[in-house]
């Protein structure tokens, strides 16, 4: 029993890293995704389509591979190795954040686009026929609908991101999974460290869901959060 407690305490050293990976990648990813989605919606055309294709490719490649490319491949590029960029890419932690945010951008931009195109046309027309301007229409008819439509898929995506942070240990980041793995390699005990880490991850997910639905209810008055099947 006391062994398990020791494990728990050791693994918990990685909690801060896991959480900061998660939150920082989430924020950067969302900002980038909004920009990408807004560009695609606002300026449809060849550029937007190329961006879409790029996002599509990113979505098709496993995060693990992206991590390897960035961590082991990028340092061989002179313009990364020999410029200030190296201060960022030298750190496994920032490599992980960059990869996570990048993948998050690819998935979230599609969610935002999807939510935008699901906005009922009639709502927009109603706003227009009341004489509201383009921005006012966006504010009153489109944005709330996007929130409503995008909430469930975005929740799923946030949870996926949280789970993805666990891959950062493959590039030596000592997060929850990293410490669990170290114990595993040292003691050859596979189950206990992983089960303990698993419980912590479940707690994080439960709390994240709670925070998201609370936020949603704060922002989107006049209705409860749509059923979240995620």
């Amino acid at each position: 029993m006391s062994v398990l407690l020791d494990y728990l305490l050791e693994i918990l050293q990685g909690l801060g890293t896991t959480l900061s990976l998660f939150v920082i990648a989430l924020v950067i990813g969302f900002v980038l995704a909004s920009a990408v989605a807004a560009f695609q919606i606002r300026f449809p055309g060849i550029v937007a389509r190329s961006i879409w294709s790029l996002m599509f490719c990113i979505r098709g490649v496993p995060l693990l591979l992206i991590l390897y490319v960035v961590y082991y491949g990028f340092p061989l590029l002179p313009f990364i190795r020999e410029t200030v960029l190296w201060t960022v890419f030298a750190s496994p932690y920032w490599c992980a954040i960059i990869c996570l945010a990048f993948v998050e951008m690819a998935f979230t931009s599609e969610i935002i686009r999807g939510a935008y195109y699901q906005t009922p046309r009639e709502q927009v027309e109603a706003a227009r026929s009341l004489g509201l301007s383009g921005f006012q229409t966006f504010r009153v008819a489109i944005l709330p609908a996007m929130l409503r439509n995008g909430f469930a898929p975005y929740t799923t995506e946030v949870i996926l991101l949280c789970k993805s942070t666990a891959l950062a240990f493959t590039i030596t980041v000592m997060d929850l999974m990293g410490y669990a793995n170290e114990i595993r390699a040292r003691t050859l005990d596979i189950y206990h460290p992983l089960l303990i880490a698993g419980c912590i991850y479940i707690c994080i997910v439960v709390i994240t869901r709670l925070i998201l639905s609370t936020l949603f209810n704060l922002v989107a008055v006049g209705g409860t959060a749509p059923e979240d099947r995620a």
Partner: protein
Amino acid sequence: MIDYLASGWGLQFLSAIGTSLTVAALGFFFCILIGILCTLFARSGFRGSAGLVSLYTYVFRSLPDILLLILIFYTLDGAIQALLHLVPGMSGVRLSAYVPAVISTSIVLGAYATELFRAGWADIPQGQHEAGRSLGFTTLQSLVLIILPQVYRKIIPHLGSLCLISLKETALLSIIGIPDIVRTASIGARSTGAPFVFYGIAIAIFVIFAILCSRIFAHLEQRVRQDRAGAR
């Protein structure tokens, strides 16, 4: 790049692609099976069955896939081998690591598939079940002839992404030591000092597969949508 491929890495990659695709295909197949069975079980009306299935999907979709894969892989690996050891005459038989790899991938993906089928099923109007009953179909007939085809129609686009996820999931097996595409690429990258060639090939394989996947499922969707063409 040709040099590397000719010097034996080409064959390595071919076998890695074979490994990844086989594991992905089997994983996809079994996770769908799990999805259907769990959905049926959840709807069977047994006490607590729905709760059990919810617990499975909730927990499995909250835990990092890599953590689950390692846990299930070693548990299964030990369990299967221990069982084999008990059977007289089988004690010398060694099971390849692929069996537990496929099973653990399927169980992890099964949680996603279950959620997909449950959602698709819930979207089928109650009237369809009732129409089936009032025409005298048995439960099994109504399931196979009426309900599942409609669930399939509803979830095709998601099946497409699930198929892609299956392949991406095999990348995680490289951490356990299965020689899949990612493992081959990273070993190659390190031992030749030409990472961009090897990682580039791996990325290309995944992108090609993603395109194929989206094409195939868009086509399937198209075929299914023909009944929506036209008026109303």
